[in-house]
């Protein structure tokens, strides 16, 4: 089976954000594989181990993203592709990203493409479905279970807390929701092997993409931090007095009940 995983390098969830010059500063920040993409990688490896084939992880970004690709290879992916847009593109949006990924994937005859259901930085969750649409294949988002039998896929997906069971067929793109699996940590032999696995680097030229083709359709005009929330009141007295005071405050001061 020919399996691809779309991966994004993101800020570690522990990071606090600092904005200067209108941009989020990344000096000294820790980066990770987007957590939802880790579920996608784990699932891809599991499917390959069961059905055979090859797992290729793809990312778009700069040179630094090589580290996250090596981590995916250490987990067990077979090949990695870095589409390096550093020199070509300043502004990208979901349109840009999905166009580039689809141009790369269009002649690869993928049976299964996996991605995270959302990236924890941009948070739009658009790229997976957009890529599927551009490739003309079906997609299922926020999956929590995947079983493949021949070309039939039986899937459970999370719809706002409820579980929808459905059936569809390959080729298919799915996006991973939490609960799909427990991503493995790279083993030491895995890390050693990853160093020798193929990592291909491409630029827009290699995909015959003109910069105009992928010009962003939306524009970010400002990035800012939310107003700092002031610590409120910790109530005092015995617990039952605190509880009745709290109910009074919620009804009369905060007016939310």
């Amino acid at each position, binding site marked *: 089976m020919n399996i691809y995983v779309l991966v994004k390098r993101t800020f570690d969830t522990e990071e606090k*954000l600092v904005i200067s010059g209108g941009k989020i500063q990344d000096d000294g920040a820790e980066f990770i594989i987007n957590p939802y993409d880790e579920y996608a990688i784990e699932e891809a490896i599991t499917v390959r181990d069961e059905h055979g084939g090859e797992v290729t992880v793809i990312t778009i970004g700069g040179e630094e993203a090589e580290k996250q690709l090596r981590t995916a290879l250490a987990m067990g992916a077979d090949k990695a592709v870095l589409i390096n847009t550093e020199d070509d593109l300043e502004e990208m949006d979901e349109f840009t990203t999905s166009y580039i990924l689809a141009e790369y994937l269009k002649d690869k005859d993928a049976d299964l493409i996996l991605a995270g259901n959302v990236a924890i930085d941009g948070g739009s969750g658009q790229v997976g479905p957009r890529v599927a649409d551009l490739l003309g294949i079906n997609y299922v988002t926020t999956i929590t279970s995947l079983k493949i039998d021949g070309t039939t896929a039986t899937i459970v997906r999370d719809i706002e*807390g409820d579980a929808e069971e459905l059936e569809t067929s390959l080729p298919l793109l799915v996006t991973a929701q939490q609960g799909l699996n427990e991503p493995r940590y790279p083993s030491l032999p895995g890390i050693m092997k990853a160093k020798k696995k193929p990592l291909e680097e491409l630029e827009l030229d290699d995909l015959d993409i003109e910069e105009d083709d992928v010009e962003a359709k*939306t524009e970010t005009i400002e990035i800012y931090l939310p107003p700092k929330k002031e610590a409120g009141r910790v109530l005092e007295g015995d617990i039952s007095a605190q509880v009745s005071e709290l109910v009074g405050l919620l009804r009369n001061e*905060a007016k939310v009940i």
Partner: protein
Amino acid sequence: MSKKVLVLGETREGALRNVTFEAIAAAKKISGGGEVVGVLIGDSVADFGAELVNYGADRVITVEHPHLKSYTSDGYGQAFMAVIEQESPEGIVFGHTAVGKDLSPKIASKLQSGLISDVTNIEGEGDDAVFVRPIYSGKAFEKVKSKEGLSFITVRPNNIPPLAKEERSGDVSSLSVDITNLRTIIKDVVRKSAEGVDLSEAKVIVAGGRGVKSTEGFEPLQELANLLGGAVGASRGACDADYCDYSLQIGQTGKVVTPDLYIAAGISGAIQHLAGMSNSKVIVAINKDPEANIFKVADYGIVGDLFEVIPMLTEEFKKVM
């Protein structure tokens, strides 16, 4: 310039969802005095048309077909694209819901359009509309605008106030669309969410963390949530410890929520959890540890044992409600 804006209406358990009324209010702003057209898709949805009008839609188009009983991206995609073809809109608004999140990228891709997801506020109107959305799960915000053509957004539930419901008149018409080649067959939907209150739309959330200690430990939280017409949520700690389903998780992984009232019980307040809830309007923290991080974002705090405090709180609310 005034615009024509389409709004996808959504129902849940036989009623229109609040987020649909919020989407109409958003569409009004984008339209800048133009026209707001509600769109209803399903096997039997025409009866909801009048209510969309009462909440501010100028008219409504319904697409009904037996194959549209359950949502599939293929079925709804064909139906909505047929409406777009007929109407040539300059704006589109969906709720940032399971359906909206799944369908909007497909429509945007077919239209080769931008799409601004998960909008929490709109500044300005018409062509000058600027959209505010959280990034890094609410650790920061960005202001975004469409560079050209269509303004296509999804709105996060509970953020944009709906217009007042009034008796209004507007045309409700049906569009006949042939729905074919569905590639997905829905077999079953297993209800897991309790009491039918969806976490992302809940006005009140009672959330538990590791301090809840067990699955049974969530029962007093559920009781309080039921009384307040809210939903139960959880921290990653509680989900990882298997006290509850991951679908309840609130945080940077998991759901980002903005209810009117968020009651955090036995939650320490890791930065990842705060990202998912700190934009709630009012936050109450209940925790044994007075040093817990959660008190730094709470409007009101009680230092105490949640198993003592929560049942007392339920009783106290019962007295006054």
